[in-house]
């Protein structure tokens, strides 16, 4: 269908367009010039409405064994019914949404792409099955490399060529999109009931440190020219003093020196000062300066007050959390690849620690260059992604932040431990579009996303407000539901309701490299594996709508 979006107020940072009234034309799922459009079949009157590219979630645990184990661990969450089956499929879950709910909720708030950031390669078949059950949005998965024995071996040998071959092999097997690494070395140490506490500490059983692992992986990613380089969940996550580890990790990227070579995910969870829970503070001010002058990028990892379920490959961290929260706990050990843990928790505004977490992520959102930071909750670790409009409204208005502190009774400990309340910064809507569209597209190397350039994917969100006349009180409501969401040139949401149930694409990266040089090592691994080498991995034809990115 050929669609014309008429008289919309357009914001597109990739073309320096900031709230200009213009018309857009869509044909065959792409944005086209008016002259190419031909006969327009549908005109959307966007008068007084804001038109932006579809949102991109760079880090949300939306598919795979972890989220599914989380769902079975928290059946009470599924009592929350979002929509019953009628036109669309039944959608449930307050925090741990079902597959249909994930696709629908993203679309309703104007998001059209989401990245599952942590998939054990051996379970990637499950991840793709679930991604294939999420309607509307485009998606991709990042396989976990961090605690694969072969990663440590090649890092210890400093062998970038072999690391490249291994990365290429594993991404191909997982039909993945890049390199994810969680608590490098820590998950391996956890298999012996331990953790690693510094990036320069040796990993048990290997002659390599987390720093060497990260460096070798970054070199491999840069040399392979991956669209998205290394996506790291840092060591020492979630504990006082973690800010120092994050600063050291940023220095590793500075040595590589290549723009976007390292993405530090859910940075908030790794940015605490102090040496105990009693004197925990925010390291956001210092770290933001470091981030702004280095090649790394980050996403927020915003904490939302209320119930959620944490889940990460970081097994030792989840165990520590379980001991603090005293609730349910799942621990998982995935052969020689990775591990994982799941713990439900509640973030309380009155808790000084949770308040610091809440404030720290907002500080990052206000202090880091919008070309380097992406809005995220590390769904579901910080909270549900449906809260993005809430986060955005707080970033855009100091008054709303102050109201929130008052209304939720946020612990006044944040006055001492963070700088949030003294920050007068209010993000413009232009900055927000960067932090939710163009910046994640750039970090992910998705050239046709996060932009309204001619030739780009017609993934578009039209919000029912004028971004040139933002009123604090209406902000949240204006962003929660779109007037229209268009995905690949089809109208999928109208007036905040799903009107068409379509399937998005799954991006994966095909890497050219010489696999032969690691043949011997791989054969050795599979001698002891539960799956034979020939049966390992996912075939492209098993995926509903694969979209290969060749490098």
């Amino acid at each position, binding site marked *: 269908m050929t669609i014309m979006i008429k008289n919309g107020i357009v914001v597109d940072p990739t073309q320096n367009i900031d709230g200009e009234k213009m018309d857009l034309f869509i044909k065959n799922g792409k944005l086209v010039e008016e002259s190419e459009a031909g006969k327009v079949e549908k005109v959307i009157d966007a008068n007084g409405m804001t038109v932006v590219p579809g949102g991109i979630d760079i880090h949300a645990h939306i598919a795979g064994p972890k989220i599914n184990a989380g769902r079975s661990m928290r*059946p*009470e969450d599924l009592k929350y019914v979002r929509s*019953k*089956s009628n036109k669309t499929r039944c959608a449930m879950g307050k925090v741990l949404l079902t597959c249909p709910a994930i696709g629908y909720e993203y679309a309703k708030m104007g998001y059209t792409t989401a990245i599952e950031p942590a998939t054990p390669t051996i379970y990637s078949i499950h991840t793709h099955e679930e991604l294939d059950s999420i309607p509307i949005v485009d998606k991709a998965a990042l396989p976990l490399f961090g605690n694969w024995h072969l990663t440590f071996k090649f890092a210890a040998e400093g062998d970038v060529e072999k690391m490249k071959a291994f990365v290429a092999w594993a991404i191909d097997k997982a039909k993945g999109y890049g390199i994810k690494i969680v608590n490098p070395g820590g998950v391996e140490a956890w298999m012996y009931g331990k953790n690693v506490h510094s990036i320069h500490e040796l990993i048990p059983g290997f002659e390599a440190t987390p720093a060497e692992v990260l460096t070798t992986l970054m070199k491999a990613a840069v040399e392979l020219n991956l669209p998205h380089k290394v996506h790291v969940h840092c060591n020492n996550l979630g504990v006082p003093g973690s800010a120092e580890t994050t600063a050291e990790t940023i220095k590793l990227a500075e040595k590589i020196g290549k723009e976007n070579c390292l993405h530090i995910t859910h940075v908030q969870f790794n940015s605490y000062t102090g040496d105990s829970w009693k004197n925990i503070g925010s390291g956001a001010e210092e770290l933001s300066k470091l981030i702004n002058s280095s090649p790394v990028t980050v996403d927020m990892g915003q904490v939302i007050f209320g119930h959620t379920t944490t889940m990460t490959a970081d097994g030792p961290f989840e165990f520590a959390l379980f001991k603090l929260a005293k609730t349910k706990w799942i621990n998982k050990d995935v052969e020689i690849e990775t591990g994982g843990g799941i713990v439900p928790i509640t973030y309380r505004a009155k808790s000084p620690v949770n308040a610091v977490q809440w404030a720290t992520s907002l500080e990052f959102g206000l202090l880091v260059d919008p070309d380097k930071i992406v809005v995220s909750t590390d769904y579901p670790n910080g909270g549900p992604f449906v809260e993005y409009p809430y986060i955005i409204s707080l970033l855009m208005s100091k008054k709303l932040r102050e109201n929130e502190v008052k209304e939720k009774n946020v612990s006044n400990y944040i006055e001492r431990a963070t700088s949030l309340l003294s920050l007068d910064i209010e993000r413009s809507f232009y900055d927000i579009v960067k932090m939710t569209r163009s910046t994640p597209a750039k970090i992910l190397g998705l050239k046709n996303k996060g932009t309204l350039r001619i030739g780009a994917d017609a993934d578009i969100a039209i919000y029912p407000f004028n971004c040139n006349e933002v009123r604090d009180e209406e902000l949240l409501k204006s962003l929660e539901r779109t007037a229209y969401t268009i995905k690949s040139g089809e109208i999928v949401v109208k007036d905040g309701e799903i009107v068409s149930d379509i399937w998005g694409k799954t991006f994966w990266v095909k890497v050219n490299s010489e696999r032969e040089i690691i043949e011997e090592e791989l054969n050795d691994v599979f001698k002891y594996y539960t799956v034979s080498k020939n049966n390992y991995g996912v075939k492209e034809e098993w995926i509903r709508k694969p979209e290969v990115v060749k490098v």
Partner: protein
Amino acid sequence: MTVIIRPKREFEVCVEAEIVPTNLNELKSLKVYLGKQEISLEELFEIEYFEDGEEKIILRGDFSKVKWIGKGMKKGEIIVEGNAGMHLGAFMEGGKIIVKGNCDDWVGGMMKGGEIIIEGNAGNRVGCNYWGESKGMEGGKIIVKGNAGNYIGEKMKGGEIIIEGNAGDFVGSEMLGGCITVFGKAGYVGWDMKKGEIRVGECEILPSFVKDGDVFKGDLNVKGEGIIKIIKKLA
């Protein structure tokens, strides 16, 4: 007003109908599910009424496939003249439900107040928590004149459950408070119970309970302070 509700036909699949005492218009237009089909109460049921100053609903006929009767009810009275389906009186806060026949599973799940009387038998999970929830029944009273199934009052925190006949296994498991009485026989009772009291005619005592005078205290596995008391069976 007393409202008499009768099924218009025999239901081939389950019906989900959250019937609670309210005004006539709301009752008639109440959305119910016949399987996955959404439909109004008056399309499926005959609704009659007469003004008598009462706040009462009488369910006449076969309601054994009708779920969620009295869900979240706050006041008034429901009388089920025959059998009732699952989840009767779940999340109930006040008022009274009387069932003359038998009841399926989940009677009074997570109820907070009010009274439920089952003159026949009840199924499993009377007064329990729903899957994954941390607390079961928190208040009110459930009386079963016949027998009940397994898992009675799991994670129960308050209120009272009385089973005049026998119960199955796992009565009061993970109990947090309140009182359960089984006049007849039960299987294992009180595992992982933290607080509250279970009175039972005859049961298996777990090794993690210790005798203290004429009662048993436990469950020691969770440092519990629950009490199990053996009482005289009803004649």
